[in-house]
């Protein structure tokens, strides 16, 4: 019972933290989506890998700019 309560508290705390830092969740979604496409490319003889790398650079730039904006 104590273990369940502890887990529930941990989940609640985690969710609260996520709500406080929505940018973290955005970043996770963005990176996961990108890596899904990247793995799709790698699994298929690296099809469009260079093009995807270029997109990756743009996304990284956007992520970094968003972080800088959030900090300031």
């Amino acid at each position, binding site marked *: 019972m104590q273990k369940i309560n502890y887990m529930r508290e941990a989940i609640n705390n985690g969710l609260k933290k996520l709500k406080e830092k929505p940018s973290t969740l*955005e970043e996770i*979604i963005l990176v996961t989506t990108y890596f899904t*496409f990247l793995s*799709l490319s790698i699994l298929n003889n690296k099809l*469009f890998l260079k093009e995807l790398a*270029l997109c990756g650079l743009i996304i990284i730039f*956007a992520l970094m700019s968003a972080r800088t904006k959030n900090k300031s």
Partner: protein
Amino acid sequence: MDLHLLVDNLSNPALLFFFLGVIAVQLKSDLRIPENSSKFISLYLLLAIGFKGGQELAHSEFSLEILWSLLFGIFLAVAVPVYAYFILRRKFSVENAGAIAASYGSVSAVTFVTAISFLELEQIAFSGHMVAVMALMEAPSIMIGLLLIMLFKGGKEKTNIPMKNVLQHALFNGSVLLILGSLVIGFLANDAQAEGIKPFTTDIFKGFLAVFLLDMGITSGKKLNEFVKKGKFALIFAIIVPIVNGCIVAFSTGSFITGTGNRLLFAILAASASYIAVPAAMKIAVPKASPSLYIPMALAITFPFNITLGMPLYLYIIQNTF
């Protein structure tokens, strides 16, 4: 990607109706939108969007940005099919590569309309001249696609393309003519009289869009099944090329296009693929190109990707760069 943008987009009733259409096909339901109704709704959407664009244009001052936007639109419609063609030639015949390249260089009016609805939902402003940019991007890519086919199809098999018919189709096909005509009418109409048809052009727009996307969902669902059998290259191309085009345009337009709304519309125009105007033109010009390849790529893969993940992704890039 801003989470609330993604949630807003995915919970948009119009988009949910699209998924209902796809699910209906998978469940083998007999749900159908009568062909005539579907045709009427697509004409209505083009009329409404053209008219609203004309009205916006009438209220905005002519600036250099309008000229830049038109030129950039034409540049995209020429550049995208050229680079796409050489990628596609790795796996496809000259005819199929040319037809698919033309499709990806041209634009999807429905994706554009959905993007406008998304911008309105997020209360992001955009300019009326973007409707003219969209209409202008339809024809050049068809011409480039055909030109590439003529250039690279050598020897005995040299194609005899009926250029007059193709030009007629590219420049005056129903959708291009209606949207440009509505744009001009919207531009010329005076405000008081335009107010009279506002309930028709604005108030019921989203309802009709929902029904149209339901129909698109049913069509996509049917095409998806046959397309899966065509191999992975086409599938990956149909997902990755729109992301590449959309991301690059979303990022690069910051230096010469002002306004988040206009930049998002450019990104979506670059990322979308035509599944109405181009197939109609290719059917006449290049009968050897397989419609079972280029229609499902644009309609069943690229279109759903753009309206679900694409739009929030491009907006995230626009809002966080330059």
